[in-house]
Each structure stands twice: as C-alpha cells, then as structure tokens.
C-alpha cells in the first residue's frame, strides 16, 4: 500500500476515446440493409425502373399513340430491314412449247417433279416457283406448309394448280411473311393427284415497295430498287393497333409509378397525422377518431374504389389518374392511422418522454423531437409496402376498364388488351404483366429488407 493507491487516478485521453465510430440510427439501419442482398438488388431494380420511366421517353423517341396498321401484333425482334421492290408486275409464267400439255397415255404412276426452285429472289411481295415438267402429267397442284411435310397428307395449304403438263410455274402472293415455307408440287392427271411430290424450302425476303416506303417515311435519299432500308424497330413488338409496346410501357410506367408513389405518400402522411393526433391526445378524442377509421375500413374496398373514382368524374380528354389518386387516399389511410396510433401510444408511455416533459418540453417539441422520429421506421416500412398495393389497385381497375381512360396507356390496361390476344400474340400480355410483377416484387423485397433493418424487435431476435 502506498499513498498512490489512495490518490485519484490520472485522467488520460485514451479512456474517453471511442474505439468505434459513433453511428446514428439511420447509419446503423443502412449498414444492415446493405448486407441484405435481395433488398439491395430490389433497390437497384427500382432505380432502373425510375430511369426507364424518366429517361426512357427521351432516349426512345417513339410516339406511344402512333398506330401502324401494317405492323400489327409484331412479336419482339431485333432491328429488321426490308428490300426495296418496285410495283408488282404480272408474271406470265413458264410454258414449255415442245412438251405435250396433256399426257399422251394414262400412267398409273409418275415421277415427282425435278428441279423445283424459284425463278428469282423470293420476297414477301411474291414467290415465283418453277420446276421441270414430268412425263405423263397433265397438270400440277401446289401446296404450302409451315413445317416440313411428313407425308402425302401433310402438304399443308392448297394454293392452286396448273392445268397442263407443260405449265411449270406458279406464283404465290398469299400473305407472305419472312419465315420458312415448304412448297410442294404434286403432278396430276388433270383431275386426280399422283402420289408423288417434291418439296422445296423457301424463306422470302421482307420487302417493301418504293411507294409504301416513301409514304411511311422510311426512304432515305438516293435508295433505289434492290437496296435495303431499315424498318421501324420495335424491341418489345407492337400491339393490336401496331403501337410500339416499349414506348407504351414507358408511358404506362408514368401512370403506374405516379399512382404507386404519390397515393401512398399522401395517405401515409394523412394516416400519420390522424393516428398521431389520436394516439397523442388519447381518451375521448382517440376513441371517436378511431371509431371513424373503423367505419372506413369496413367499406368494401374495390367497390368503393370504383364508385368514388366514377363519382369524382372524368372530363373528356382526361386520363382519370387524379380521381383514382383521391379515391385511393380516401379509402386507404386508416391502416396507417391505426399503426401509427399504436406506436404513439407505446412511445407516449416511455421513460424518455416523461423525462423530456419533466425538463419542460412542450407538446410540439415532444411530438416533433421524440415521437415522430421514433415512429418513422414503421412509417417508412408501411410506405414501401403501400407502393405495391397502390400499383396493384391501379392495375386491377385499369384491367376491368375502370382505371385510366383509353388513349393513355397504363400497365393494367395494356394487360387488359393483351389478354384478348393472349393465345396468338402472348407478348402483348407478357411484357406489361412482367413489368407490374417486377415492380411489385422489388418494392415487397425492399420492404422486407427495411423491416429487418429498422425494426428493433427483429434486431433483438437475432
């Protein structure tokens, strides 16, 4: 024992020093959120969607309302080109003079025509077939199929025929597309077909006449027949009126995201004020306010959505977004109000509120400095989950034709149009549906991530 043991310890700087940086509530939450891979991917998806909506129309300057009846329900594709052709000119065909038009004697069997080919480059304007005459044939039938014919009964669409053994050509102009066709030629005895045929695969080149290219504004200076021009590019295809789906998705994203972000913002704000007021003052005011909230909750949601939306009216030329926003706000605030009230009731009883009040804090100081900051985590989580809910509601209403009025596209109304042609042109349904799903999914996963990052109860459980 020495005197030193009884003297005060020397105060050194090291003792007081923090070994780790001090983190605020939000920094802590952000670190937690950053560890959550799904939530971060969702955040990136949401940012991408924002860019798609905001910058998309600047980069992709295609009018979403422009109809092109020549390009109806085109599936998604890479940029396409077409070959310039002149006006259609009739073709006389080929008749071989020194070959008998009718068979000299009836034969039980004849050979399949040889040398089946096209006379020049096939285009979607016309395909010209020629073949060598067959000994014993008095005519030929021509068939077209979209797959390789398995046998004699699988030749496909009968196009027509020739009625002489020396007429050995046929011209097809029947709604040709740029895809592979299997043409079959069957020799006949003038009435019945012989069971022999030959097949050729032909892929016509997409063509456009000079006049049409000029009228559709696709003709650059100095291009003539035989050269290539690039057609309008539709990366996601076109819809039933030939409108570009990508441009419509961008335009529709504005509607969906506008409703999806502003409706929750408004009703969550209203709910926070309403619930905060009820919770903070308590007693009779609380009971009365909450009873009213219960009434609003009991309204059948979708029925009243439709009723209110119609009641607020759409003038001619308006899209009906604002009535939908108002209806959504009017019907959806009670859930937030209840949640915030519950939180406020809990926080009101906390020791630090009493302490603040003891130290002379006034009402507005208590509410602004202590109560609202402590509920903001819950509010943020509600907000993220409210976004998919609002997007869903807009899509539902637009789907049943009660949402955004027609010339304005929305993802829901695009789905509605797509469902009608679902079997033949699935891309018209798939793209808007995928966009809705991805957006809703991203907000849901982000909401899950935020709940985990912000909720202290979850943190205690870890």
């Amino acid at each position, binding site marked *: 024992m020495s005197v030193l043991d009884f003297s005060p310890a020397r105060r050194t700087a090291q003792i007081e020093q923090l070994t780790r940086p001090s983190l605020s509530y939000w920094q802590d939450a952000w670190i937690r959120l950053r560890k959550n891979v799904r939530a971060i991917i969702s955040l990136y998806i949401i940012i991408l969607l924002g860019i798609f909506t905001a910058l998309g129309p600047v980069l992709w300057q295609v009018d979403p309302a422009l109809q092109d009846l020549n390009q109806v329900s085109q599936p998604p594709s890479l940029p396409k080109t077409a070959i310039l052709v002149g006006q259609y000119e009739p073709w006389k065909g080929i008749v071989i003079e020194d070959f008998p038009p009718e068979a000299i004697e009836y034969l039980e069997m004849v050979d399949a025509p040889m040398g089946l080919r096209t006379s020049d480059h096939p285009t979607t304007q016309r395909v010209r077939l020629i073949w060598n005459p067959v000994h014993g044939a008095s005519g030929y039938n021509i068939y077209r199929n979209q797959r390789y014919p398995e046998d004699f009964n699988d030749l496909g669409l009968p196009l027509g025929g020739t009625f002489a053994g020396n007429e050995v050509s046929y011209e097809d102009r029947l709604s040709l597309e740029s895809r592979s066709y299997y043409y079959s030629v069957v020799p006949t005895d003038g009435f019945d077909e012989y069971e022999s045929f030959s097949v050729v695969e032909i892929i016509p080149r997409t063509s456009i006449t000079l006049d049409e290219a000029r009228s559709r504004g696709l003709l650059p200076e100095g291009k003539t027949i035989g050269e290539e021009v690039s057609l309008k590019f539709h990366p996601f295809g076109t819809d039933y009126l030939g409108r570009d789906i990508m441009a419509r998705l961008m335009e529709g994203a504005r509607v969906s995201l506008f409703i999806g972000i502003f409706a929750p913002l408004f009703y969550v704000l209203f709910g926070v004020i309403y619930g905060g007021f009820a919770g903070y003052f308590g007693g009779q005011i609380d009971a009365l306010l909450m009873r009213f909230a*219960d*009434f609003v909750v*009991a*309204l*059948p*949601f*979708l*029925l*009243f959505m*439709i*009723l*209110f939306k*119609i*009641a*607020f*009216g759409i003038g001619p030329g308006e899209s009906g977004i604002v009535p939908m926003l108002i209806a959504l706000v009017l019907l959806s605030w009670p859930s937030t109000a209840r949640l915030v009230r519950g939180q406020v009731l809990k926080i009101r009883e906390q020791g630090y509120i009493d302490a603040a009040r003891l130290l002379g804090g006034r009402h507005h100081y208590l509410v602004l400095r202590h109560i609202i900051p402590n509920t903001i985590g819950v509010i943020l989580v509600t907000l993220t989950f409210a976004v*998919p809910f609002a997007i*869903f509601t807009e*899509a*539902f209403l637009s*789907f*049943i034709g*009660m949402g955004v009025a027609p010339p304005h596209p929305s993802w*829901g109304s695009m*789905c*509605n149009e797509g*469902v009608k042609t*679902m*079997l033949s042109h699935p891309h018209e*349904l798939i793209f808007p*549906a995928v966009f*809705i*799903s*991805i957006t*809703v*999914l991203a907000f*849901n*996963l982000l909401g899950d991530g935020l709940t985990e990052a912000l909720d202290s109860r979850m943190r205690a459980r870890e």
Partner: protein
Amino acid sequence: MIVYTLKRLLAGVITVWFIATATFIAMHQVPGDPLLNDKAVSAEIRKNLERRYGLDKPITHQYLIFLRNMLPPNPDFGISFTQQNRRVNDIIKDHFPVSAILGLLAIFFSAAGGVLFGALTAIYRNRLPDIVIMFLVILGISVPSFVFAALGQLLLVNVNSLMGYSLIPVAGWGSFTHMLMPSLVLGLGTMALLTRLMRTSMLDVVNEDYIKTARAKGLSPQRIFFKHQLRNAILPVITVLGPQIAVITTGGFIVELVFAIPGLGRYFVQAVQQLDYTVIMGTTVFYGAFLVFMVIVVDILYGFIDPRVRVQ
C-alpha cells in the same frame, strides 16, 4: 361473451348504416342521368319513371326512404333501372350464390394450401423445399390475379387440347369442374399470404415453453408437431382469415370477368357503368353488410377455437 357479441353486433349495424350513407352520397355525386338511355323518352313518360323510382322527391327524402326500405326483416332495394322488370333483391338472390360458392372454394383452397405449405416450410427451414415454396410465395404475392387467371386459362386450353376433349372447361359456370380453376386463381394471393404467416407463426411457436415441456415429457415428434405446434400456429392464420374473406369476395369480380362467371361482382361493374342507382346501392350495401358480419362471426368463432381469448 353475450355482452361482447351484442356490442359487436351493434357496432356492425352502425357500420352498415355508415356504408349505406357513404354509398348514397357517392352515387349521387356520379355525373350523368340514370334514366337516360338510347331510347328517346317523352316528358310524361319521364315524369312517370321519376315517380316510379322516387327521383321526383328531394334528396333527403330519397335518403330516408332508402334507409326505411333497407330495414330488416324485409330489406327491399327496389327495381333495377336498366332491367326494369327485375327487382334488385332478385338479382342479388340469383347471382350472389355464385360469387359465394366461388369465394368459399377459394378460401378453402387458400387456407388448406397456406397451412400445408407454411407447415412444410417450417419443417424444412432453410432447406430446398423451404426455398422453393418461399420463392413461389413471393411470386404469388407479386403477380396480379388477372395474370394468373389468364395463365390458368392458357393451361386449361393446353390440357384440353392434349386430352383431345374438354376435360376441364376453360370458362363459364355450371358444374364443379367449372369452379376449380377460378377458385384456385382467386385463392392464390391469399394462399401466398397465409403460407408466409403460417411459417413465421410455426417458427415462433417452436420456441414456446409448452413445446419444450412436451419434448421433455417424452412425447413423440409427430404428436408434438400435430397436437402442440400446428394447433397453436394456426391461430394467427384464422385471425387473418376474417378480413381475407372480405378481400376474396370483393376481389372476385376480376376472376368472374376473365372466366365469364355470372357472379354478383360482374353485375356491380355493369351497374356502375350504366349508372343503375338501385343495383349499385343494393349490391354495395349487401356486400358491406355481408363482410361486416363475416368478420364478427370469425371473431366470435375465434373464441371457441382459442379458449384463452374467451377468458379475456
């Protein structure tokens, strides 16, 4: 218990009054003339029509008549504006059973599926079945029901063309096979929600003391799972089921539209488009009342399922 029930019923009646009033106000805000249709109507006929539907009286008077007619035991919602020989009560009587059967089947599918899949994910926690089911759940929550409806129809078309005959009808109403796909589609969203809830609830229950006690007593794992864990974990699912009945029955009209089912929801959409005052009022009040009392019934039933609630 009786006092609690009566209190809830009284609150329910007031809620229905609120719904009726809100509907009345909202409907009279809708711009347009319900008596105007494609046929030209002379002034006298119009006057007669207005008298028939009580539109000639002041609006407060109309409201009081509407409330008086709505009173039990014989609520009367009047005659439809667009189908002038049909009473709204008959429309509800004819078409509500269709929606109710559809909704009931959907609830059955979603509850059975939710409990089953939720229990499975809890058993196989963080293993392959859990991951696969939870992925499907997220998909089920994120994809709108009209897309599921369209995909369901597509599936049926393909199945039927594969079978060579119509095994399950693609649309329409009538037999039991008609009901399968629409109710499955209708219940899918709720099923996903319930699966998620059931999973959390199961994982919460595992840590409870009574499970430890049961294990310490030496009960077999099967017995612990079915008698102790599953039974207690189902309780929160039942609580959510009440409000979900509301979501399913009112949300049904999208499915009714896609599958061409003559349910009440489709009538409501039609009535709103044609501004059929009496049908709008009738269906909304009827649905509202139905939902309010469904929630009360579920809450009271909850007391029987979980005796702990009754004590409080």
